[in-house]
């Protein structure tokens, strides 16, 4: 459905997208993953015909985006990073405008718009001015705009940005639902999101494609080591020694003392080993109560950081991680 070959986009000398190739077949939901500024948006802008590439080619549904732009564009519903909304129009007037802009033939305008508003839960605000709506509603109007004309391909650039957690879940479910009959590309820098929605993940970093696989394969092949945060009430030296003694444990580090006499450790184990039971048994044999234990990071996160060249064990890495986790929870 979508074919991208040796796509390169240069701004001056800097390559925003550097020789990327991939294909997306019909009915797939593909996630573009990468840190900010990796080239996700640029790639999407090229695919939708907003920007032109420096070299390479892109086609949608067999239509080259440069040679038959109108045919290709009419197959795509695009939600850009900033939803392209006219803030002085009402939701209804805006969607009608988009409807006639996209030249939707064979669809009844009123019924079609009503149906889309129903799907994205906009029906209550159809008469309101877009500029007066909250960010979450504006994002939905943007999504509604992309859905008009029932395009077989949906390209969504960070569709859940600015939404509250409940809306995020709603939109994710909606995208999954839409993906049943459509080809969807969505971008995100939030790993759990991509993991939750997409069957396939394309990781982009600094304009290059660094991985293109399913979430399971990515974790299996390039996967990181499992790390657990363990909080134990007991003398530090004794506990560390005992934890180190567990088969498969590669490192133990004390990171905090949340309560007096209780310490939190980061325990890293070898790949594909489960040390949770062993940790419990050690605590039992030492007679030190195990207060809490949980895996620190999803292993896909490690893959991502490995692939995009970050360092996970950087000084203060733990703190950074928890900040990021909190950010994700906030989203």
């Amino acid at each position, binding site marked *: 459905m979508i074919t991208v070959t040796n796509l390169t986009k240069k701004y001056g000398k800097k390559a925003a997208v550097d020789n990327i190739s991939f294909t997306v077949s019909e009915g797939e939901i593909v996630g573009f993953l990468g840190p900010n500024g990796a080239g996700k948006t640029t790639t999407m802008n090229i695919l939708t015909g907003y920007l032109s590439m420096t070299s390479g080619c892109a086609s949608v549904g067999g239509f080259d985006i440069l040679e038959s732009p109108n045919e290709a564009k009419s197959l795509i519903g*695009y939600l850009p990073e900033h939803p*392209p909304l006219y803030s002085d129009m009402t939701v209804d007037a805006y969607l009608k405008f988009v409807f006639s802009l996209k030249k939707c033939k064979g669809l009844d305008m009123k019924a079609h718009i009503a149906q889309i508003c129903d799907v994205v839960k906009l029906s209550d605000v159809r008469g309101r001015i877009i500029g007066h709506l909250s960010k979450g509603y504006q994002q939905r109007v943007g999504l509604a705009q992309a859905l008009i004309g029932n395009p077989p391909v949906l390209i969504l650039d960070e569709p859940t940005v600015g939404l509250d957690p409940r809306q995020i879940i709603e939109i994710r479910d909606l995208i999954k639902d839409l993906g049943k009959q459509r080809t969807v590309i969505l971008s995100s820098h939030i790993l759990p999101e991509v993991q939750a929605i997409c069957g396939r993940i394309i990781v982009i970093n600094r304009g290059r494609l660094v991985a293109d696989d399913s979430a399971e394969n990515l974790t299996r092949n390039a996967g990181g080591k499992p790390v657990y945060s363990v909080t134990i009430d007991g003398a530090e030296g004794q506990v560390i020694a005992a934890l180190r003694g567990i088969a498969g444990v590669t490192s133990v580090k004390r990171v905090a003392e949340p309560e007096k006499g209780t310490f939190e450790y980061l325990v890293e184990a070898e790949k594909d080993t489960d040390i949770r039971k062993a940790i419990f048994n050690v605590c039992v044999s030492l007679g030190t109560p195990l207060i809490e234990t949980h895996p620190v990071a999803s292993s896909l996160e490690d893959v991502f950081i490995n692939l995009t060249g970050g360092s996970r064990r950087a000084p203060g890495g733990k703190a950074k991680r928890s900040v990021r986790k909190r950010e994700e929870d906030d989203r």
Partner: protein
Amino acid sequence: MLTIFKREFKTYFTSVIGYVFFTLFMIFYGVFFYVSIIGGEKSGIVSSGMSNFFGMIYFVLVLLVPVLTMRLLSEERKQKTDQLLLTSPVGLGQIVTGKFLSAFAIYSIAVGTTAFFAIVIAAHGKLNFVEYIGMVVGILLIGAALIAVGEFISALTESQVVAAFATFGAIVLTFVPVLLSSIVSSSLLKTLLGLISLHTRYTDFTSGIFDISNILFYISFTAVFLFLTVRVMERRRWS
């Protein structure tokens, strides 16, 4: 194209711009109307009032063009709504033309109100109908040319204010050949300046001369700037 035109036309009235344009226009309209009719009557020459009136209306309309064109494309870029237009199955030419026509439609409505003036003259004096039509056509054509320039400038920037001032500057510049030709002595230079001037040709219309070359001049001037606008937008995609 019609879709773009309709939306743009409505925007003049959902935003403050259309009202600003018409308010300013109406204020000047009233003042000039009074000055040329009542003033003309006092001096005993009512029919000469018409060319006075049109001369003044002409200046006002020309100087109000930036109000109409400043946000045409700059605002789209700023609000990122150009992403919607450019990723829709609509050609750039249609977008640029649709927007041009909407501004031109507003301008034409303003010009159309001069019919009221013509009616008053016809009722109370002698209306030179050919002269009147000539003036209207001339004002419409020069308006089209300047709106195209304004749209072109609006495509160059993201800021409405910059677009407005630059367009205003460009319009003032179009009077330079007129001013120059009044001070140069060489008749060759005078003719040359007359040829490139947007305004010298207008005087032909006011004397009721429909010269096809003048009409073609304005139309091609408009077309060139619309084409340049398309090129600017096209180029941005590639840069």
